[in-house]
């Protein structure tokens, strides 16, 4: 299909979104990610039955924490995409990229840069 999606996106592979943990999501932001989205299989089509449903709940919980600490829960999203649906994958990547570009950088990025420089 030779579809393209924004090069700002880094893919971290997991065996199933059920493996996603709240701390993985927080650590990404703690290390300076501007946004994170979890791409799981379509609901009802999880090979492990409920992996993607559990992931959604964890994402919701992590969003609340991000709101509490002032990073902003809107920087984190959960999507469900069929493994075979390349066009939708690229579309979501663009959608998320645009959303995060509009939100601007992770509010702790400046502090992280200073820390690195020190």
């Amino acid at each position, binding site marked *: 299909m030779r579809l393209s999606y924004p090069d700002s996106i880094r893919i971290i592979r997991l065996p199933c979104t059920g493996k996603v*943990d*709240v*701390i993985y999501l*927080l*650590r990404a*932001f*703690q290390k300076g990610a501007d946004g994170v989205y979890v791409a799981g299989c379509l609901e009802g089509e999880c090979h492990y039955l409920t992996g993607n449903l559990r992931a959604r709940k964890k994402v919701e919980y992590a969003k609340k*924490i991000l709101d*509490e*600490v*002032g*990073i902003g829960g809107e920087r984190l999203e959960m999507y469900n995409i069929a493994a075979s649906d390349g066009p939708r994958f690229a579309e979501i990547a663009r959608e998320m990229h645009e959303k995060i570009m509009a939100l601007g950088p992770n*509010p*702790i990025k400046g*502090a*992280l840069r200073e*820390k690195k420089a020190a």
Partner: protein
Amino acid sequence: MIVAERKPIEEIMGFVRDFKKIIIAGCNECVTVCYAGGKKEVEILASALSMAFMKEGKELEIKEVTLERQCDPEYLEELRGFIYDYDAVVSLACGVGVQFLAEKYLKIPVFPGVNTLFMGVTEEKGVWSERCQGCGQCILGQTAGICPISRCAKRLLNGPCGGSTKGKCEINPELDCAWQLIIDRLKELGRLDDYDTLIPIKDWSTERAGGPRKLVREDLQQ
């Protein structure tokens, strides 16, 4: 188990705002099982606090530790080697653990990271409910294994009040009437005669009404 829930991050931030180096201490027992203060929650809180302060342009050094228990001195000793290298401790143990830690290390402020709620059960994943109030004189033998002290809003001892409607309590339509549960279960067990036996006026001195409690077993003392 003792059931607890994490305090709002803002409240915890308020505790540690003036410090530079803190310890977040989890507990491997009850609060781990109810997802409030185990190793995972320590990691989450450390990450959240670190981000929140970084956003304010402040750096907070955080050491993460999770003890086997915070209600036993032997495990609290594990902190001895390094605790005073830090400015404060946030304990994610129940109120018991927080206090015992504070009692063992007098020269460092200890703050609670959770609100301790009750002694209860895991009804299903993510749902906990109260089962015991530690009244000091268990009457479960007469009440079909269902406790009217912890599960009846009025702590009645001899049957339901007038607020029991269709098996539910008047304080909350979703709450089962403890006495309805007791009677139903006595019936099932063929022991409804137990219901005829009056439970005498309870001596509340073994409960909190008698002040802080203590148990001493001389056979175990060294």
